[in-house]
């Protein structure tokens, strides 16, 4: 059994060199029985799927060019469409295709010139089992088709990311027979008709991210507007946050007892906003500690957090004129391993017995282990995280807990700088309108679906449209 095929647009493949007789026979193939089916006309791409498709053939013939009726035929891909990948930087074209559910009929009538009888129908003898996979071939005008990729039998889409921007390409999808010869190579294959031409182009704006842009402009706009207002001297109110007001008391108590303050900035890196918030609060705590001459311990789980914390603490001591009392060993690196770090911090708690413990930043399953150990040594504990699954543990075991955005508000709250407070105000403004939108859409959706459960009413359609837009598509 040899493997060969006629190719579209008059290009000869290596296999076709064997004999013109074979080529003619190939053309035959019931393959085309398949291409005469209605499915082709359903693709909406008549250029690519018209009668010319019949010229594309699979190959399951012996050397004499007669069909080996013992072998299963190969399904022929059809409806091949090539399109530029949207919202990318150019250089990618997506190719999609279809494949019939039945293999080409072995007994389809084919004339010597390669045409197929109009009624060459497919007979199901094995479904897509006759295909083992696909090869994707690409050609530019005047060029030979080249192999640009392979796709498993289940795929109906391939992205060619080797396309040159601005060049017009056509694609052929080749279905490989699941029957292999002694050399392991598929015994036959079937080529689709070439797709219509497509060109890879780069976009200047990712339209699929319009929703993100609108939300970003709204949220950032609100924050910047109120920062601007704060700069003009407007009075801004901020509600009391007990957890932050307790910071000074906790440091004061540690000073009275002559015991250290332990500050744990979480287990994440500086990429985590919670860690950044924790580091900003550290600056405030370090100043208080420096003023009172209380020892400070800052074990860290990330080298960059460690370096940043060292700078913050050093600067805090300098700002209150206590540079000489700064201890470079107060900020240490333990390990980035979550529970190795937990063991290290627990060890520090038990050995050093700090009077005040701050657990601020990102915490996961170690939160309760740390908070319970802190409780056990009798320390006053102030915790804060945006991780909702850890908040119950902190609430249960700590004296004060900063919940969610209270942690992010801390630097503004503690500094009382108008500009910082302005950003808080902007944040609250954005939150208020998000709440309004949620409530409004819940009401509209509920009413809409109450009126017409099939979602055909105007409110239901408005609800669906907004939901789809926010979901990005």
């Amino acid at each position, binding site marked *: 059994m040899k493997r060969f095929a006629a190719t579209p647009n008059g290009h000869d493949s290596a296999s076709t060199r064997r004999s013109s007789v074979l080529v003619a026979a190939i053309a035959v193939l019931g393959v085309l029985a398949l291409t005469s089916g209605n499915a082709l006309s359903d693709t909406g791409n008549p250029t690519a799927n018209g009668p010319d498709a019949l010229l594309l053939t699979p190959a399951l013939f012996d050397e004499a060019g007669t069909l080996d009726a013992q072998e299963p035929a190969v399904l022929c891909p059809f409806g091949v469409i090539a399109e530029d990948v949207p*919202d*990318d*930087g*150019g250089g990618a074209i997506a190719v999609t295709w279809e494949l019939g559910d039945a293999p080409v009929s072995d007994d389809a009538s084919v004339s010597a010139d390669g045409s197929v009888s109009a009624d060459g129908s497919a007979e199901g003898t094995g479904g897509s089992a006759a295909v083992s996979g696909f090869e994707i071939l690409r050609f530019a005008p005047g060029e030979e088709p080249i192999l640009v990729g392979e796709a498993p039998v289940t795929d109906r889409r391939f992205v060619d990311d080797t396309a040159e921007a601005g060049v017009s390409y056509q694609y052929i999808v080749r279905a490989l027979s699941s029957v292999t010869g002694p050399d392991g190579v598929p015994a036959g294959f079937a080529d689709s008709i070439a797709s219509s031409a497509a060109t890879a182009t*780069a*976009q*200047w*704006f*990712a339209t699929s*991210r319009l929703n*993100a*842009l609108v939300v*970003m402009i709204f*949220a*950032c706009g609100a924050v910047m507007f109120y*920062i601007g207002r704060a700069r003009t001297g407007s009075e801004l109110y901020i509600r009391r946050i007990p957890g932050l007001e307790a910071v000074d008391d906790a440091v004061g108590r540690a000073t009275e007892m002559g015991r250290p303050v332990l500050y744990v900035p979480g287990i994440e890196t*500086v990429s985590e*906003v919670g860690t*950044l*918030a924790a580091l*900003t609060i550290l*600056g405030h705590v370090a100043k208080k500690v420096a003023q009172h001459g209380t020892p400070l311990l800052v074990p860290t789980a*990330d*080298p*960059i957090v*460690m*370096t*940043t914390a060292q*700078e*913050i603490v*050093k*600067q805090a001591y300098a700002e209150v004129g206590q540079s000489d009392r700064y201890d470079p060993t107060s900020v*240490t*690196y*333990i*390990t*980035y391993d979550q*529970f*190795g770090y937990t*063991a290290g911090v627990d060890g520090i708690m038990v*050995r050093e017995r700090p009077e005040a413990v701050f657990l601020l930043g990102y915490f996961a*399953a170690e939160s*309760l*282990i740390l908070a*319970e150990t802190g409780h056990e040594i009798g320390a006053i504990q102030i915790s804060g995280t*945006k991780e*909702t699954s850890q908040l119950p543990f902190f609430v*249960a*075991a700590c004296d004060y807990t900063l919940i*969610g*955005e209270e942690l*992010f508000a801390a*630097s503004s709250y503690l500094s009382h700088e108008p500009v*910082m407070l302005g*950003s*808080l105000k902007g*944040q609250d403004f*954005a*939150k208020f309108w*998000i709440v309004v939108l949620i409530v409004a859409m819940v009401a509209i959706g509920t009413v809409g679906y109450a009126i017409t459960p099939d979602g055909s009413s105007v409110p239901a359609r408005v609800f669906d449209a907004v939901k789809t837009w926010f979901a990005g598509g």
Partner: protein
Amino acid sequence: MKRSIPLAITFLTGVFLVVSFFVPHEPFGALEQRLLIWFSIVSGFTMLLGVDNLLRSHGRKIGRRNPGWWHSVVLLIGFAATVVLGVLGRIHHGSPFHMQSPFMFVYTYTIVPLQGTMFALLAFFIASASYRAFRARNTVATLLLVSAVIVMLGRVPIGAAISEFFPAAQEWIMDVPQLAAKRGIQIGAALGAVSMSLRIILGIERSYLS
């Protein structure tokens, strides 16, 4: 100068990454990829900072004979031994992670049990915290307590054996009130993160720079 250059870098990088999120056209995509590769490389090197600090601080404790200095000796010996075994694994087996390498022996029989033990402590702490702190002090706390009992029962087979109510109620608690509260906190936290990121990009929030 010490502050203005980092602030300028922060601003330019922040703005560039935001823009590249919306603009796929080159050079944005390729430059963003280049920055990401740099990020990954720099992240790897930061480990050296951590190791440097670890060795210095524990070396200092040993040198000063601080209380418990011998803990630091154990740490340094453990550190050196792990590095040596990793190198030996590379030399003899091509990778420290080869199953026959001495590093994997240490990993399997020391690191894995130690880590497992640490996490297992959580179960003990949950038990003691539930006994000590989980009190029906007021209506809200009582609701929390009842919910917790239902969820705990609903998540084990005996809950369904007692009554089908428990798994169903557990699912409802997790899917409705739990999610509603979580989403509320998440929206607030996300806006907080936006606000904080903006303050950092614009150079308003500088405390992390010092």
